[in-house]
């Protein structure tokens, strides 16, 4: 029992995991989900349908139509998300990748919020509402107040974080005080936030002077995240903040006493209570921090990407955040890369719809399938015939018993 014995397993573990365990399953899950998505695309393609009519006469036509329907969509998706060769416009070939990073930004931060709560054993279905509240607060300070540069942005960011934290923390408080289930609470809080925002967007304080469209004035320039990849891209400082948030959450979970408490109440709340952890306080704190992280997404939306506030401020980022956190297995860096992947899907899907007419909804299908597959490794392994060995072993056991 020396210090080597304590630290050694970690280093060998990583390699082991990649080859045998969860990382491989994750990759295969993504692949499998893309295949199913491809089948859906091909099945509804017009060329495929017309060639199917004479399938028995010339099956090759059908098969090639089938193949090209699926691949064309995915090639368009890739070009829209990562790299568009030969594009000469103002955005250049790297435009898509910048767009991916931009869209990934709110996914990452709210994904971190969901992941952090997961680690504490809490289902934070409420990122959607937390984004709305934070976006509303941040936007209001951004367009209604006029402050010097730096200070204004700082205030907007802090207000956004606090708004999200309050909305999340309130759920934590109700859960800690009354034992109400956070899944129900967060779902209901999402709707309350949405309707409150819709109401605010009918009041003069939030509207452009003399207009009744539910859209606020543009935020002051001093309240906006600076662009970080040059003026031609939308990529803003929020992405750097998201990287910072990932590092912070990693430290919080793995190196801080607070993270120790969070993980303890997540893994065994009764033991945590017996060990002197104030479970109520930790529950409120973790929900507040989770809300604050989702709040960063709200800030990224109003002070970075959209620059105005509408009732679509959260889009579906709050719900996507759940799948992001699940794909990332609730680890900070896993969530970061899952956010990038889903950001790429989102960015690419727009291009895909323009080029091939494949609806954006296919991204939802692929996204949810990925999470389902990842959550059920035995299923993925069965599809790829990876647990044949085990099955054989099991059947001999059963045979022996019979």
């Amino acid at each position, binding site marked *: *029992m*020396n*210090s080597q*014995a*304590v*630290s*050694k*397993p*970690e280093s060998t573990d990583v390699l082991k995991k990649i080859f045998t365990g969860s990382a491989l399953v994750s990759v295969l899950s993504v692949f499998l989900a893309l295949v199913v998505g491809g089948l859906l695309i091909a099945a509804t393609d017009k060329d495929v349908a017309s060639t199917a009519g004479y399938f028995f006469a010339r099956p090759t036509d059908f098969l090639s139509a089938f193949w090209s329907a699926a691949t064309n969509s995915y090639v368009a998706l890739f070009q829209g998300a990562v790299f568009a060769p030969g594009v000469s416009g103002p955005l250049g070939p790297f435009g898509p990748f910048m767009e991916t990073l931009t869209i990934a930004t709110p996914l990452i931060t709210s994904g971190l919020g969901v992941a952090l709560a997961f680690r504490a054993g809490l289902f934070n279905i409420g990122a959607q509402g937390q984004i709305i509240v934070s976006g509303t607060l941040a936007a209001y300070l951004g367009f209604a107040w006029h402050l010097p540069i730096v200070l204004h942005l700082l205030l907007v960011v802090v207000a956004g974080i606090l708004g999200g934290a309050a909305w999340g923390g309130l759920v934590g408080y109700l859960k800690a005080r009354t034992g109400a289930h956070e899944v129900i609470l967060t779902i209901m809080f999402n709707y309350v936030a949405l309707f409150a925002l819709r109401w605010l967007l009918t009041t003069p304080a939030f509207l452009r002077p003399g207009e009744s469209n539910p859209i606020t004035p543009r935020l002051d320039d001093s309240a906006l995240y600076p662009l970080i990849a040059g003026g031609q891209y939308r990529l803003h400082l929020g992405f750097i903040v998201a990287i910072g948030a990932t590092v912070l959450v990693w430290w919080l979970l793995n*190196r*801080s*006493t*607070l993270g*120790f*408490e969070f*993980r*303890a109440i997540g*893994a*065994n709340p*009764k*033991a*945590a*209570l*017996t*060990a*002197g*952890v*104030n479970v109520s306080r930790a529950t409120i704190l973790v929900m507040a921090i989770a809300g604050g992280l989702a709040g960063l997404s709200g800030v990224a939306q109003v002070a970075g990407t959209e620059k105005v506030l509408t009732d679509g401020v959260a889009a579906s980022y709050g719900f996507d955040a759940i799948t992001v956190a699940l794909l990332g297995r609730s680890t900070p860096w896993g969530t970061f890369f899952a956010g990038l992947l889903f950001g790429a899907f989102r960015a690419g899907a727009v291009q895909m719809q323009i080029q091939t007419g494949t609806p954006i909804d296919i991204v939802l299908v692929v996204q949810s399938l990925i999470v389902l597959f990842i959550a059920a490794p035995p299923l993925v392994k069965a599809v790829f015939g990876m647990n044949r060995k085990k099955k054989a072993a099991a059947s001999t*056991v*059963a045979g*022996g*018993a*019979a």
Partner: protein
Amino acid sequence: MKLELRGITKTFGTFTANDHIDVVVEPGQIHCLLGENGAGKSTLMNVLYGLYEPTAGEILVDGKSVSFRGPGDAMAAGIGMVHQHFMLVPVFTVAENVALGAETTKAGGFLDLEATKARIREISERYGFNVDPDALVEDLPVGVQQRVEIIKALVREAKVLILDEPTAVLTPQETDELLDIMRQLKASGTSILFISHKLREVKAVSDTITVIRRGKVVGSADPSASTTELAALMVGRPVNLSLGKAPAQPGDTTFRIRGLTVLASNGQRVVDGLDLEIAEGEILAVAGVQGNGQTELTEAILGLHEHVSGSITLDGKELVGRSVKEVLRAGVGFVPEDRTEDGLVGSFSVAENLILDLYDQGPYARGLAMSPEKVARNAESRIQEFDIRTPSGATPAGALSGGNQQKVVMARELSRPLRLFVASQPTRGVDVGSIEFLHRRIVEERDKGVPVLIVSTELDEVVELADRIAVLYKGRVVGVVPQDTPRDVLGLMMAGVPAEEAATEQTTAEHTAAAATQSTDEGDAGEQPGSVQA
């Protein structure tokens, strides 16, 4: 009905829980399976009841080989089982619980609970069970719940009844009643497979005894075999459970409980105006049947209960109303009764579990930042000091054996200077080797001058460790008596009889018993060596 187990083997991964076990239960016989915790008794019963599929071996009923795909098959074959943890739905009535799975129905699948109730009344009267079919199970005392379990088996016309550690939750008096019921059942032709590790009961009721150790049958014995012989067979070596601890050297009384009352969440008074005090360098052991307020007493000391009144003082400081953390900081070491539920985070590493209640203190943390190196270093020394058998400090605690898990909890709580040490069921489900080790550590702590409170439902353990014994009944202290109080007196006290009364009642009872022994030539007279065949 004759029940035979032939060469039953059950493995879980690489672990062999049952290794070629042979047992024959003759019709109308009470056959006892004797073995320590973790010897594989319960696994065997689950195989027999169709809950596990055996890896190898066969079950024969009246000479015919049968295979059970589930409990349904076992019941159809006439096997009934009373589980150690009752299999009753708490929010159902007695009748609903009895009906479940063997429902009598009217046309259209509608329940006919009246028919079931009639059956319950009939059985209840026949055996003097005194069970109300309309009572909600969660409102019943454990003794009555156990009878409901027996009724469940009888309604299904069980010919063989398996009783898995049935006396663990009973008072000595309730135990006697149960033994009577068993004899009655036997008289009416039911075979009983009685699983226990309590030698006295086993000797009192069995017709034949099979001893199991580490998943293997190590011998069979006659109930007339002596207690020491049976114990040696069960444990695998001569047992000398006596610690031989030095007499206590009590110092100042630093820990006092005055008028402590604890309400359960349903409003019931689980601890009811309780007074206790413990001096430095003294072990006070709390005896009592499970569920008489012991759990709540210790939890109230730690500050885990909301609805507490009265006073608990340590070194003159009031503990009631303080948070768990404050109580721990006041120098209270606490070993909860259920280590996997309350004592450990199974998915955390051994190292993390070793600082589970010290994580935010130096040297492990400075401000918010924790130091993984310090945590790992602490683990190394504790693992050595307490001889915790683990591959490394990074191993998840959940992967360790029960004994080693308990050592982790104990190592953590004893790793800092204490002003009070509270341990509930300190050796529950722990192998004999570890029991001795853990008991020594507890006595060492006492000898450092720490007041120690032990709660145990095992009378042996109480007597072993205690300097004084407090007996709890229905949340009240029935009496505080010296360590050398006769067990029978303790037994009566555990049923609520005050100390003096219990003592006098016991002497009269002994007289009658003595008379009975003389006239019938039974009793302990049969304790002759040589009746054990290993």
